């Protein structure tokens, strides 16, 4: 499946990601969590080839990603960003169907797939024929997910997909998304800075700090057997209900 082998990234002289290895468990959801600027997006962007790692390799099904094969590899992955990244000049339908049409699918096949995905993501009727600017934030995000799923990729990468939504919309979408991930058995990487969300989605939670992986496991592991004070402070800061803050040396 997808794995990082000793991948590091520097911008100029600053190393934002120390050499990091990570294997994604097929069919499971891995959550990347950590404070802002710790390198979560950078890892995702390396996985989809938006940026190249300074060191190390990314392998997809055992094949190393290269500039030569990245375009084809991307078609086996779906990538969702905050607010969906929908193209303003295309209707919702054309946004979702763009790549499939480009690859030569006929109209009927595209439309059948669209109906299927609309049902799956519980997109309201009629939304497909509107333009992004005419849709709500939650609807735009559902379309972003439909677009990522269009070619039925093996891997889904989501970078704070719910970051811009208000709590009630966010709650519904979280429920729907987890249902989708589980029923489709996708290999998912989801970035968040919200521990509650991480626990809700994550089969595995990866806590990042200072450009490296600090602890990797279940949410319960982190609460009960934190690897160090940084983990404890991070958990305390989330004010999870039912979890008493633990003592740490003040920083």
């Amino acid at each position, binding site marked *: 499946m997808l794995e990082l082998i000793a991948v590091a990234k520097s911008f100029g002289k600053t190393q934002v990601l120390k050499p990091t290895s990570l294997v994604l468990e097929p069919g499971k959801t891995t959550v990347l969590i950590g404070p802002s600027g710790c390198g979560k997006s950078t890892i995702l962007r390396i996985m989809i080839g938006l940026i190249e790692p300074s060191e190390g390799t990314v392998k997809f099904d055992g094949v190393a990603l290269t500039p030569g094969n990245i375009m084809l590899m*991307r078609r086996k992955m779906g990538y969702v*960003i905050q607010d969906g*990244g*929908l193209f*303003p000049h295309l209707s919702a339908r054309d946004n979702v169907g763009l*790549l499939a049409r480009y690859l030569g699918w006929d109209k009927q096949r595209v439309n059948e797939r669209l109906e299927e995905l609309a049902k799956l993501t519980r997109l309201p009727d009629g939304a497909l024929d509107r333009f992004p*600017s005419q849709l709500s934030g939650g609807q735009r995000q559902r379309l972003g997910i439909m677009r990522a799923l269009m070619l039925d990729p093996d891997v889904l990468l989501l970078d704070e997909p719910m970051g811009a939504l208000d709590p009630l919309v966010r709650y519904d979408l979280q429920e729907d998304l987890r249902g989708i991930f589980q029923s489709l058995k996708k290999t998912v990487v989801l970035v968040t800075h919200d521990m509650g969300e991480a626990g809700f989605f994550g089969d595995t939670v990866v806590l990042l700090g200072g450009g490296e992986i600090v602890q990797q496991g279940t949410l319960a592991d982190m609460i009960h057997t934190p690897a160090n004070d940084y983990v404890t402070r991070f958990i305390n800061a989330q004010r999870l209900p039912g979890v008493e803050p633990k003592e740490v040396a003040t920083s």
Partner: protein
Amino acid sequence: MRSIVSLTVFPAALLLILASIAAAETPNLPLVRVGSKSSIENVILGEMLTLLADQASGDARHQSALGGTQIVFAALKKGDIDVYIEYTGTLSQEILKGQRVRSDDDIRAALAKLDLVMSQPLGFNNTYALGMKADVAEKMKIQTISDLARVAKSSTDPQFKFGFSDEFLKRGDGWPAVKVLYQFDNVPTGLDHSLAYRGLHSGTLLVTDLYSTDPEIAKYRLKILDDDLACFPEYHAVILYREDLKDRAPQVLQNLLKLEGKIDNSAMMEMNTRVRIDHDRDVNVAGDFLLSKLKIETQSGEEKKWVVIGRDFVRNTTRHLLLVFCSLSAAVTVALPLGIWAYEYPKVTHGILGIVGIIQTIPSMAVLVFMVPLLGLGVKPAIMALFLYSLLPIVRNTYAGLNEIPANLKESAIVLGLSRQARLYLVELPIASRSILAGIKTAAVINVGTATIGGLIGAGGYGEPILTGIRLADVSLLLQGAIPAALLAVVVQGLFELLERLVVPQGLRLARGD
């Protein structure tokens, strides 16, 4: 990217330019082509040459009012015209400058090397002169510039005022030369020529500079002071023609040379007066002169004014549209790929934007002076100049429109797995379409205005009546060009607003709330 460029048509652009030019040029050239610079005097004499040439051959055309000396001389050298009226002073001081020509024989020798010939002088000498009101001059007993210098020295009269045009004040053969030679120590004021005449009339000025055939000399009853120390260079009018005219049309040449020595200063001034002050048509004035002075009867067909206006309007409109359309379509086909390149390759961004920016700053007159020797007269150099001026807005807006697309949208297209080309055509260009179209609109509107330079090089269009109107101080003629040009700009603007509805995707217009 390479495929995009090959797709986008450098070859198509060239074809388009060539085809449109071929369509615009008149295929059957007349036997004799007369040119003229755009001053009243030169256009009258150009008409006169044309009448004479037509009488002898029945096949002559006047490329009237072709802008400045450089353009007309270049056209003569290139063979786009066969003959025009020039001045000996202009030949020695300007055209053959640097070749140290002094006498008329020097000029002839230098011209012979270019296969050009100059006739004997026509008679009048249109040089700088100093003039004052005739009655005042008589009262002050001033006949010559030396008299003036003497009186000026001894005068304490505060009214003793000199007012000269800025050109005369600056030119080496103008006031600086007079001042030294005649030893003036007055300090003249610089002012516009038309104001100077009024100043003389009202008495606030005593002396101004003139051209010795200006119609105002008669109108304001001015006296030209005798240049007794021969300070001003001589500007004798001559016929300048291509040597091959002798073999190609000997009869015509013989007829033209009948003008040698026949037009003196007062005759020329009278003709200038009839056109400039009385608004007679230049062709009639030229025909009358030939009839009365040379007993040569020529036909200058009289036509009803409205017929002429209507026919000219249709012709100018067609030509103006042709200039704008050809130059704009060529510019779009070249500028669009350039803008895409500038966006695509950061290394060439500065180069491309810099070069089209510099082109924009070259004055249109300079572009024409450069183009005429290469492309001749007519629509070709005009289209070329307009084409060059259209590049900047289109290149710049294409580049800016692509460059300002938010990074997350560009990345969304990348991560989908679209090829570079597909991203450009399916995502980036449509999103930038509003900006690109705005650039083309700007170019089109500017083009409608700039196309009036066509009047300077015989390309036609609304520039023709505008420039003639300016030359003749004929407001109604000027408006016959200026009003349609302004209306056309408005129409073009409107057309582009309609086009925007067709070209700019609905989603983008919704997103902006219009």
